[in-house]
């Protein structure tokens, strides 16, 4: 009697077969980035032109940083991600662990004026497996409407619950938060990492975080802080400067960025080791790290190019026409208040700090 079921089974098998094979496109890569308004900037400024120019399709995937998914794919032996937009410390760690393909700077395009890529990149923007993308900065911002009267202006104010009561948004990772805590606790900017090198310094940072712990709402995606500020869920939040900028100019949100103690870093584009689509991935990497691509990103969100030849190409915002320079983390006024994110320290201590941080959170 079972053969009478066979049309049933055939139909199902056919459906399963079609859906499992039907979507496999010939030349397609998965590019992983940070989503939200930054993701949109990369998409419009880089991905769409790339697809038009090369015919290689780009699947965009969003993530919130970290090496976990890359490690998982390499360990299980199935690579789904091809090009990833990583933080510097992670790019260095991932390279050491053999998770990423080495990148030859000579294979990247020259600057528009003919400067070889190796000289065109800002110092420190290239690592063994990573090509610099843009400078971004972690700052804190507040909603003017939620803070009447005196406005906060320093990192210390962020930790001052008496003068500025209300909940705070912070990223659910140890990096940046430990640095901010130490600055707020009175450690001079240039001694922050020296302090973190000692157990006392780390204890001190956690002790400072403890003072606001009950008032913190932890975020993971870069798109959350502007949303939480707009909803009034928090009165101030750490955030990536570009996200706040976009909320200010595109959505007219009354947000104010506090540049004091801003932590500046460079994004890294990397290629995951062992991807079966290496050729396409490298092609994309070369495209996205050209001065033009960086500038296209910089015209849509306030992150400045990691190539010397990129900055002049940015000039003004693509829609609003405002001058981008004062909003960039690297502008003289803003850079004067910056702390350069020490990715070497974090490459060495990330694991320990992650463990301690999550134990501290779980308590």
């Amino acid at each position, binding site marked *: 009697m*079972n053969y009478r079921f066979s049309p049933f089974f055939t139909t199902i098998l056919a459906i399963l077969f079609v859906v499992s094979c039907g979507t496999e496109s010939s030349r397609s890569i998965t590019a992983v980035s940070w989503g939200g308004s930054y993701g949109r900037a990369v998409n419009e400024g880089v991905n769409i032109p790339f697809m038009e120019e090369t015919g290689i399709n780009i699947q965009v995937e969003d993530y919130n940083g*970290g090496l*976990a*998914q890359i*490690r*998982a794919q*390499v*360990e299980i032996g199935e690579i789904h991600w091809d090009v990833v937009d990583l933080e510097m410390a992670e790019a260095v*760690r*991932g390279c*050491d*662990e*053999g*998770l990423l393909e080495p990148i030859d700077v000579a294979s990247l395009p020259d600057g528009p004026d003919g400067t070889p890529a190796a000289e065109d990149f800002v110092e420190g923007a290239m690592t063994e497996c990573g090509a610099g993308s843009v400078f971004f900065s972690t700052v804190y911002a507040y909603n003017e409407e939620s803070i009447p009267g005196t406005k906060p202006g320093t990192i210390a104010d962020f930790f001052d619950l008496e003068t500025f*009561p209300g*909940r705070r948004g912070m990223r659910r990772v140890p990096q940046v938060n430990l640095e901010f805590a130490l600055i707020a606790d009175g450690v001079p900017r240039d001694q922050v990492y020296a302090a973190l090198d000692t157990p006392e310094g780390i204890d001190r940072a956690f002790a400072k975080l403890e003072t606001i712990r009950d008032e913190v*709402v*932890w975020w993971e995606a870069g798109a959350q802080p502007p949303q939480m500020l707009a*909803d*009034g*869920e928090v009165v101030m939040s750490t955030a990536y400067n570009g996200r706040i900028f976009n909320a200010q100019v595109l959505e007219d949100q009354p947000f104010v960025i506090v540049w004091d103690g801003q932590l500046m870093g460079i994004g890294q584009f990397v290629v995951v*080791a*062992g991807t079966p689509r290496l050729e396409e991935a490298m092609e994309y990497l070369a495209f996205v790290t050209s001065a033009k691509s960086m500038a296209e990103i910089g015209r849509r969100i306030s992150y400045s190019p990691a190539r010397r030849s990129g900055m002049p190409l940015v000039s003004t915002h693509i829609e609003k026409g405002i001058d981008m320079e004062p909003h960039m983390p690297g502008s003289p006024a803003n850079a004067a208040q910056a702390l350069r994110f020490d990715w070497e320290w974090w*490459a*060495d*201590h*990330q*694991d*320990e700090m*992650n*463990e301690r941080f*999550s*134990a501290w*959170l*779980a308590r």
Partner: protein
Amino acid sequence: MAGSLRFPVDPHRRTQLRALALVAPLVIYIGVTFIAPLGTMLTRSVYDPVVADVLPETLELLEHWDGRTLPSEAVFAAAAAEIKRAAAARSLGQVAGRVNRVQGGLRSAVTRTARELRDIEVGPWRESMTAIDSVWADPATWYAIQVTGERFTARHYANALDLQRLPDGSLAPQPVERRIYLKLFWRTLLVSTVITLLCLILGYPIAHLIARSPAGRANWLLILVLVPFWTSLLVRTTSWIVLLQTQGVLNDLLVAIGLVSDDGRVAMVYNMTGTIVAMTHVLLPFMVLPLYSVMRGIPPTYMDAAASLGATPVQAFLRVYWPQSLPGVGAGALLVFILAIGFYITPALVGGSDGQLISNMIAYHMQTSLNWGLAAALGGVLLVGVIVLYVVYERLVGVERMGLG
């Protein structure tokens, strides 16, 4: 089986075979797509060949190590060679990640060592390696390599129960700051109990009301219970966020009627309160439906009889109604409890940092820390708990009667 069919078979045996043939495809399907994956996971909780495969010679030489002093130059030489080889083969990261879980800080030390060893061609390796990083002078590092080098290991289960194995082989509790899992298991049980009780307190009266209502009204009241049952879990969780957040509907209401001031809004979500409220809402139908199906079978005349014999309503309820409804209470409570201890979505979305349960920790180790062995072991412990409860449920209630509305 095919052979036996050639002979005339008695009808009893034939129907039996036909029944088995009908059930077989599904049993095989469940075996392949469910039992086998669980088996794969449980294997990972006790078996891990990576370090043993990458550092075979080092591990072999370490067998003769006394465990207290620094290993011999031969061990260092083997380790240096194998680390170089692993770095070239890109398998070092997996080793570094594993030893790092036994001894924090080793991941970066191992990878840094590999980087600097690239330029060193000749020994003495002991000097070079201890000069690159002092961790190589620490016996704990070599112990970590030894421990992770075991192909078959119980250390993930020990870890899941907050125990560690000391170099002398004995089991000891983890240091205080690393004891988190027993507390989390305990919290999960406690929260599940609270939720089960809340469901019982809220569900019992309405199940009673529905059971006593005339058919038409009962049907409509049942629909009120079934609407949340059929509504997407994510939708219900979203609703609670919208209702409970500090700028949410409930807080706005409290401020509007003057119960709390605008600055004194209550934090009801992203904490344990949020987890409990939302989970109670999600699980309440699983309590009401079994209760209702039992209560429907209790003749109302019993209560009237008790009343006519002079019992007060309270006495009549306690002596007559409650005992008869107990099977429903048991079925509902067990079902809610079983579902509650494995809950993941709701605590992850509304639990904040203190409203997390054991499932969230499993997800954390699956997706973030990538300590898959530990995730599998935590899953194994949870699975044993669920199986015990499931067997109890099967004995008391029978799985066919699992209430579905």
